[in-house]
């Protein structure tokens, strides 16, 4: 006995299912034992494929560039104090900013006002990390406030629900019976203000077991929609996919 999606498994583990099929298979997977077993078996093979690439040593300058950024960000984290290092609680997303690409002019982060121009971009990104963690800590006391149900655009997961609670200008997003993000992707929260493209947040999360609670970093002032999209690992600076959650704070 085999599932009609049986032949999708190879393409799935190789990352070769196009967007819509990828979403469908991702939604199908949790409920299909046969496909989950096949994915587990073939994923192990796909994971060995990098070994088939001819081995080429990276240039030493690459390490120097990466370590320079890492050291600069570590210095800012240290300066931000011990809270910046504390995990904000199990379901809360890890602090994160998107990687920068110095050689390309890409859509810029909308940095908070305190990220002054003279601060190098890498350090500014790290400041954002610290702010994201701070927000998570502030909310950990248990928010009370107004809760609204969010619109969930996940046709393949009809039971999925999401709600947004806003208290003291801060928001908490809860999802229930929600599908895991597609392989290699992570959910990212965005804040949308009228007439502007969505601002990225450092709230990146995955869903295991269907439920998650996510503290949304940043002020809710002027925000008319809180969006969630499935982005590549590490997050994005602008949404690369349509929102799967749209919440309108009351």
């Amino acid at each position, binding site marked *: 006995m085999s599932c009609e999606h*049986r*032949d999708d*498994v*190879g*393409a799935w*583990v*190789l*990352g*070769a*299912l*196009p967007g819509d099929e990828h979403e469908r298979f991702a939604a199908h997977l949790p409920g299909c034992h046969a496909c989950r077993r*096949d994915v587990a*078996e*073939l*994923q*192990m*093979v*796909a*994971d*060995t*494929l*990098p*070994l*088939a*690439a*001819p*081995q*080429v*040593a*990276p*240039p030493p300058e*690459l*390490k120097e*560039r*990466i*370590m320079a*950024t*890492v050291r600069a*960000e*570590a210095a800012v*984290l*240290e300066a931000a104090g011990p809270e910046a*290092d504390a*995990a904000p609680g199990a379901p809360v997303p*890890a*602090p*994160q*900013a*998107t*990687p*920068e*690409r110095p*050689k390309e002019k890409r859509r810029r982060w909308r940095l908070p006002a305190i990220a002054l121009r003279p601060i190098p971009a890498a350090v500014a990104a790290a400041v954002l990390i610290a702010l994201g963690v701070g927000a998570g800590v502030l909310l950990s006391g248990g928010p009370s406030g107004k809760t609204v149900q969010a619109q969930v655009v996940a046709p393949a997961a009809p039971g999925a629900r999401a709600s947004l609670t806003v208290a003291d200008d801060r928001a908490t997003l809860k999802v229930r019976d929600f599908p895991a993000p597609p392989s*290699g992707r*992570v959910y990212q929260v965005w804040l949308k203000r009228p007439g502007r493209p969505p601002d990225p947040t450092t709230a*990146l999360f*995955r869903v295991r077991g269907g439920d998650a609670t996510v503290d949304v970093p940043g002020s809710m002032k002027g925000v008319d929609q809180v969006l969630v999209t499935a982005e*590549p*690992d*590490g997050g994005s600076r602008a949404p690369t996919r349509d929102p799967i959650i749209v919440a309108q704070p009351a």
Partner: protein
Amino acid sequence: MQLVRRGDTAAFEVVYERHATAAFSLAYRMTGTRNVAEDVVQEAFLSLWRSGARYDRTRGSVRTWVLGIVHNRAIDALRRSMVHDRRRASDEGIEERLESGDRTDVEAARRDEAREVRSALAGLPPEQSRVIELAYFGGFSHSEIASMLDTPIGTVKGRMRLGLQKMRGELNGLAEAFA
């Protein structure tokens, strides 16, 4: 990884040293361009540095996790820059260039593993290895591959699955050990 999560730059440097060659090799194999491969590796490792807390050891080795990020970033780069059109389909001109300092026991073991994987891939019927390589290293979707090879999508998907299953048989315990 716990140390990386805590912002320990020395721990991060160790992770980089350990996996940079595999990461760069994969990125180079996929993009065929040194500059793009460097960008991909830089993006991937900075992403790793900034998200060390999200590494879940129950879901595979650090190497698998790192290479998974590199793979995704390389596909993004391919789709962004249309390197697809410029890169050559073969590996011509790319030779194994490990520095002598890398020739440790660990590297020797990795080379054995690499030989095993290459041999398993090369041992597949050509139509199966072709679709696997185009998908994994080329970043092409099944429909793009079907169009390139003038083959029905269902056949392409079937070849991917059959090829991977056959490789699994050939690789015996390596796949499990790698996970």
